[in-house]
């Protein structure tokens, strides 16, 4: 527009005296620059997002495979129960020398000379210490396998696992490596026989805490987090919805309700670690609930999630048009009937969405759980919420402090699992909103 109107003006006058230089070129350049800054900012933000997710996935996807070794194990009665009194004393089977069985099978497979101590030691260290529990559980579950030979996949040692995944720099001098050349030779031999494979790592989901990476898993953490989410859902949803209904539909406008409102907004902004201090002082010190238990974690997270749920619920209630309320009251419903029969069902999708998002935040929260002692080394599944347990993000925190390469991989793997849980929850919330949201 401007260009078109300017050109005839200059030609008509014949000179350029009538046009002042208003710096259009510079102004348009500034405009383009400004716009580019904005785009660059968004690009940078997205770059960080992909860098973050990319680095976690690149480091963690291998955690879902665990190198295992196939062995033909002879459950030799001579080794397990030399005196033949396993029926009278159950300790015999629990304390037998199971690793020896696996070691013998491995020596046979690799053709290791039983008299060569160095080779024997190197071959033995291919196996995980978890072999003991694995074979013991097999025998205790079914003692009739004693005396027979079974083909079993056993876990490889964490260092072997890392080496098999190519995570060690093999050009480093042998003495400074965690895996020596002879062990690498054994690994090659096993791989050629098809007896060493990366298999899907079910242990990552089922095992409890362990100091050995190959037998460390998130089973306890998943159960602990599940208990806590259950407690949060059972407590925070009804209390939050009830509080919102009162504030939105019934509360008279007075000083008390004003205080409650300001309070809720401020609680939403209190740093999460302060809730941890509250939990420690009130639930553990004062009420005497057990430390490290999922029930305390659940209560703390409930208090933390409550403001989120209340704010979401109030927004959902506000979105229901007043005409619905007027219509219900008009046909003779009481105020309580109006709320529970008409307003609440219409607001339900919004409430549900807010609740799921609140739960997702609670699931990823770590800091308050550290203070109430959930940084515990728990190897057994918690039977009730009152037993010691740990939580997904806390497990990630604990693993991230371990130095072994295999733990870095597992930490990233655990993060992937946590993010998958969160993604599922958030996508559910989005779908719910898309599906049921009504605009009046």
């Amino acid at each position: 527009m401007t260009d078109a109107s300017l050109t005839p003006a200059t030609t008509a006058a014949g000179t350029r005296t009538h046009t002042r230089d208003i710096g259009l070129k510079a102004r348009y350049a500034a405009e383009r620059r400004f716009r580019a800054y904005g785009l660059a900012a968004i690009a940078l933000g997205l770059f960080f997002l992909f860098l973050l997710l990319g680095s976690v996935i690149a480091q963690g996807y291998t955690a879902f495979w665990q190198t295992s070794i196939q062995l033909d194990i002879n459950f030799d009665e001579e080794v397990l129960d030399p005196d033949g009194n396993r029926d009278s004393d159950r300790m015999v089977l629990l304390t037998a020398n199971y690793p020896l069985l696996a070691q013998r099978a491995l020596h046979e497979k690799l053709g290791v000379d039983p008299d060569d101590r160095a080779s024997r030691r190197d071959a033995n260290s291919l196996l995980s210490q978890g072999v003991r529990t694995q074979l013991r559980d097999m025998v205790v579950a079914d003692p009739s396998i004693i005396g027979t030979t079974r083909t079993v996949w056993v876990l490889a040692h964490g260092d072997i696992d890392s080496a098999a995944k190519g995570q060690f720099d093999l050009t480093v001098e042998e003495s400074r490596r965690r895996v020596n050349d002879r062990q690498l030779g054994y690994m090659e031999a096993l791989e050629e026989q098809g007896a060493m494979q990366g298999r899907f790592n079910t242990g990552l989901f089922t095992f409890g805490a362990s100091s050995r990476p190959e037998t460390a898993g998130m089973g306890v953490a998943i159960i602990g987090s599940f208990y806590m989410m259950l407690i949060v859902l059972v407590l925070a949803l009804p209390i939050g919805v009830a509080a919102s209904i009162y504030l939105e539909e019934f509360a008279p406008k007075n000083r008390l309700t004003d205080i409650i409102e300001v309070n809720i907004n401020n609680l939403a902004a209190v740093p999460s670690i302060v809730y941890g201090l509250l939990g420690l002082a009130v639930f553990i010190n004062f009420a005497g609930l057990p430390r490290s238990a999922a029930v305390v974690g659940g209560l703390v997270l409930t208090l933390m999630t409550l403001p989120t749920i209340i704010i979401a619920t109030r927004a959902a209630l506000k979105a229901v048009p007043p005409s619905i309320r007027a219509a219900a009251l008009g046909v003779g419903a009481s105020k309580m009937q109006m709320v529970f029969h008409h307003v609440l069902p219409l607001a339900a999708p919004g409430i549900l969405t807010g609740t799921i998002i609140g739960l997702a935040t609670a699931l990823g929260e770590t800091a308050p759980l550290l203070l109430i002692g959930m940084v515990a080394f728990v190897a057994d599944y918690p039977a009730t919420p009152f037993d010691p347990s740990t939580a997904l993000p806390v497990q990630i925190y604990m693993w991230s402090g371990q130095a072994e390469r295999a733990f870095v991989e597992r930490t990233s793997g655990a993060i992937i699992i946590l993010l998958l849980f969160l993604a599922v929850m958030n996508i559910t919330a989005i779908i719910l909103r898309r599906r049921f949201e009504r605009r009046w």
Partner: protein
Amino acid sequence: MSVTTIIALVLVIGVVGYLAGAARARMIVGGETAKLHSRPGYYGSFILVWATLPALLLLLVWSIAAPTIIDGQVRDSIPQNVSAEQSATEEDLSINIVEAIAGGLRLLDERELQQATAGFVLLRPLLAEKGVALAGNGEDWMIPSAQLLNRLQDASLIWKSIAVIGLSIVGFAAGLLQIRAQLRARNRVEGVIHAGLILASTVAILTTVGIVLSMVSETGRFFTSVPPQEFFFGTVWDPRFANAEDPDAAGQFGLIPLLAGTLYIAFVAMLVAVPIGLFAAIYMAEYAGSRFRSIAKPLLEVLAGIPTIVYGFFALVTVGPFLRDLSGQIASIATGDFNSFISATSVLTAGLVMGIMLVPFVSSLSDDIISAVPRAMRDGSLGLGATRSETIKRVILPAALPGVVGALLMTASRAIGETMIVVMAAGVAARLSINPFEPMTTVTVKIVSQLTGDLEFTSPQTLVAFALGLTLFFITLALNVYALYIVRKYREQYE
């Protein structure tokens, strides 16, 4: 009968009451429910409330009060000569042993029990066999006390069951007797629900009161051993965990280095987050088409949904080593000496990663505020021939400034209260420094490190965490209250 069974039984009585109440209401009017004041279901709920509410309240009160009363009686049973020479803590310890013995005695059978009650020396191996490990310093008088404890607990449980179930049945009957056609059952039931709603909304207040009270009382205990001025104005943080026993080696609890670290890291984070977030918000609000916006905005908000532990791990494993190696390369180019000047955990690492986390907070809060600037102001400026960027810089931003400042304050309060990133990436050394390449520590890091591990709630080493928490609470509270005030005031301007 366990508490769960009692609750289940009371609920069963309640459900039966619901059915009975509804049936009775129908029966009174001979099936013509129009003659009733309320729908039959309300009469049912009326009975339900009568049958369950008083009983469950009694259960709650009993469960809270009984342990205290029993504890008192057991303490009274301690022989005179023993209790005279025991201090309060010693008495607590003995009571703990008594409780352990009482728990163990329940596992023994009749014959063993007789053996065991003879004396502590005999009891100990018996219990150890059952898997109950006792502390060594038990005495003979503890066994009768433990037996008393068990008797009282058994009696309490029996009477509790009888009383609660009885009250439930009495409530059931009392409710049923009250049912008439004219009974305003709906109003009564709605009254109970109303009270429940009010109760739920006070939980928020109770939480705040709980936070403040618990922290103030523990902080008060902390200030009895460390004077407040030493805490607030001390420049040395050295709590000395190892020498807690040694009275000469009293720790120093200076808040200043922690606060400096907190503010420094938050400042670096804001330096990263504010330009990126603000420009992103401006682009989203003023330039982006709806297609672009609908994709980029949720993607950017994913950053806000990622747990902070993941950011912490990212800082620890990726960003920290990257910055360290990068600084090494730079140093080798500049001086020929491969000496990295950025340590792996540093103010820069923590601030950078925290800044990334804060980008979506800044951008979505500012986006809302920029979009709220009235259309007319934009159109007026554009109509006068200003370019879009000039409109944004000269008209929209000045108009949105108070709101944006409020949003930034809220973001800053989040940066100050952030824990996991700094725990993993900022370091633990408390020192005053202005070099962003060195590790510094924050208030939140110290709260975590003082409270993980074995706790003893009498030492200032532990209690200081509550003083730190209270400080943190008030700083973030003040920032938020001020931010909310600004935002609210700004909103009124255009409404």
